[in-house]
């Protein structure tokens, strides 16, 4: 075995794989076609305990780490990247509470997320603040024991489906990014509503939409960490989540390779299976090698995160960047290997190619990942003099 797993890790991988095979694959084309949120499948994932993999046992989780969570994300994405996005986005919403929540916030919000009874979501992006997250305009003004929130969050995964939201809003406009704070919002909070569900190119089983705050009044106990920590919380959350995107990309790419090899072995042209043509064989070899490299990078970084390092921003960006670029290339090549069949919706690879594109965009575009890596390199080499 290339990656020796403990008994528990093997269990997680096997359970997630079975969910993909038995519960996701038979329904993925329909979910994609109808743009339907996969509640039945998420219920299955919840029953299997997978929502709580990285949440400590005292908060109702299994108490494992980033690596184990990535094993599950990879297998679920092997079944459908849309379902995996809905699943992983709940983790993205849980991380800020886990990392920065006080005891009471953790006790209140983490157990239902760990059990999969409630989905979580994370809201940073706004219409005028995408890659430039510092440009957010949503405000949270303190008023006695409350904060009054106004503004709109855009393209939020699990919008409307999740019960628990962590959002970033400005508590002090004058301080710019240092005036941002993180808050826990609950579906049903007065003045908190949802905009239209977006129509997307891929990951159509997942829901993406706006969070709208109109004089939304929440108790001051919903503040995560301290005022002014909003961006630190957001960046740390993304550090933890990005290798998860890497794992999602690896699972998706593996699924595309599996389809491509299977097809190339069966499809005959000029009297022989097309895998025997070097043009096709080399393409598959390239795909398989890239996936293995992406998996190695993602696993290594997840295992590193589980040693609780102080800073792993650069590595998290690398895992997300490399694996998502691989997924885009591999899924595109899988369509090419299947030729006309690959372009048809009767085969799953065109969906995989549509799904892959978002991985280069969400949780920070790959251009932003390169910026992050370059900035850190500049800093690291600057210190070395």
């Amino acid at each position, binding site marked *: 075995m290339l990656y020796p797993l403990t*008994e528990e890790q093997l269990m997680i991988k096997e*359970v997630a794989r*079975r969910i993909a095979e038995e519960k996701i694959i038979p329904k993925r084309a329909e979910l994609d076609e109808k743009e339907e949120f996969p509640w039945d499948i998420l219920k299955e994932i919840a*029953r299997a305990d997978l929502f709580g993999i990285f949440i400590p046992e005292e908060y109702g989780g*299994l108490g494992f780490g980033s690596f184990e969570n990535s094993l599950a994300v990879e297998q679920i994405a092997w079944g459908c990247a849309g379902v995996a996005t809905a699943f992983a986005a709940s983790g993205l919403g849980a991380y800020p509470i886990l990392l920065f929540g006080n005891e009471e916030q953790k006790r209140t919000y983490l157990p239902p997320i760990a059990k999969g009874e409630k989905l979580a979501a994370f809201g940073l992006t706004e219409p005028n603040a995408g890659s430039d997250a510092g440009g957010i305009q949503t405000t949270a003004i303190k008023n006695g024991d409350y904060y009054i929130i106004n503004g709109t969050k855009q393209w939020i995964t699990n919008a409307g489906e999740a019960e628990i939201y962590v959002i970033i809003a400005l508590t002090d406009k004058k301080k710019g990014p240092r005036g941002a704070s993180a808050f826990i919002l609950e579906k049903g909070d007065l003045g908190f509503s949802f905009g239209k569900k977006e129509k997307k190119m891929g990951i159509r089983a997942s829901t993406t939409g706006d969070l709208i705050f109109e004089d939304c009044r929440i108790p001051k106990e919903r503040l995560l960490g301290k005022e002014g920590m909003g961006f630190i919380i957001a960046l740390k959350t993304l550090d933890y989540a990005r290798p998860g995107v890497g794992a999602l990309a690896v699972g998706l790419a593996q699924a595309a390779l599996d389809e491509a090899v299977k097809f190339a072995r069966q499809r005959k042209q000029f009297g022989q299976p097309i895998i025997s043509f070097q043009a096709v064989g080399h393409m598959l070899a390239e795909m398989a090698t890239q996936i293995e490299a992406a998996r190695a990078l993602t696993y290594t970084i997840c295992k590193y995160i589980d040693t609780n390092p102080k800073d792993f921003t650069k590595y998290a960006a690398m895992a997300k960047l490399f694996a998502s670029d691989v997924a885009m290339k591999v899924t595109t090549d899988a369509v090419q290997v299947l030729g006309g069949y690959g372009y048809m919706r009767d085969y799953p690879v065109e969906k995989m190619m549509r799904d892959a594109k978002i991985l280069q965009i969400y949780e920070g575009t790959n251009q932003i990942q390169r910026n992050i890596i370059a900035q850190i390199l500049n800093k690291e080499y600057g210190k070395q003099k």
Partner: protein
Amino acid sequence: MKYIVCIKQVPEIEGVKINPETGTLIREGVKSIINPYDLYALEAALQMKERYGGNIILLSMGPPQAEEALREAISYGADEAILLSDRAFAGADTLATSYTLAQAIKKIGHYDIIFCGKQAIDGDTAQVGPELAQRLNLPYVTYVRKIELKENSLIVERDLDDGYQIIQITLPALLTIVKEIGEPRVPSIRGKMRAKKLQIPIWTAKDIEAKEEKIGISGSPTRVLKIFSPPLRERKEIISGSLEEQVKTLWEKIDNILK
């Protein structure tokens, strides 16, 4: 509520071959699985547990390795398991099996619903469930696809070829379950961890106070004389002639069927 689910470990049917000389199953190298219909029975019990609470006990009669099947079934969310294993149980037909299971269930004592799969994929008799109910003097419904609890009774849907019956049955009762109850869930991580550690007691003939003449081969009046694969019935017909004649003949035949 206390539920008992009967589980049988069976050979994976796709791998099984028959020795043409002896007419017996060649079991060597064939993977053992939980009888798929028993997984539907377990799913039914798990659904009841989710809705009404309670405890699920698994019961299986088989060789020591049937413990694997019980451990696997535990990982789906059952609470306890008991293995009935004794050399004296070997060679049991459905009559001896139902007697043995009934003795064990009497020892368990209190229960509300016993779930069985509609049949096992190796023997395909569908007899053990009803026989067991008879031995325990319980009301039973076969081919159940839906269950609702109503006070001290169940309202169940019984699946038939051309429709379904709605039946009310008092508790305690025995149900045999069909796949329409819903596809079995996937085992959980916590379930798998529990399954690994759980102590599974083994009950012998003595433990369940079984009479020697009623168990195993001595309690089994059934004798298998011969096992064979039935020949495929050939019903094909080759239509000949010119293309036009073939189409005409074919159409006449279809037309006849449609009339």
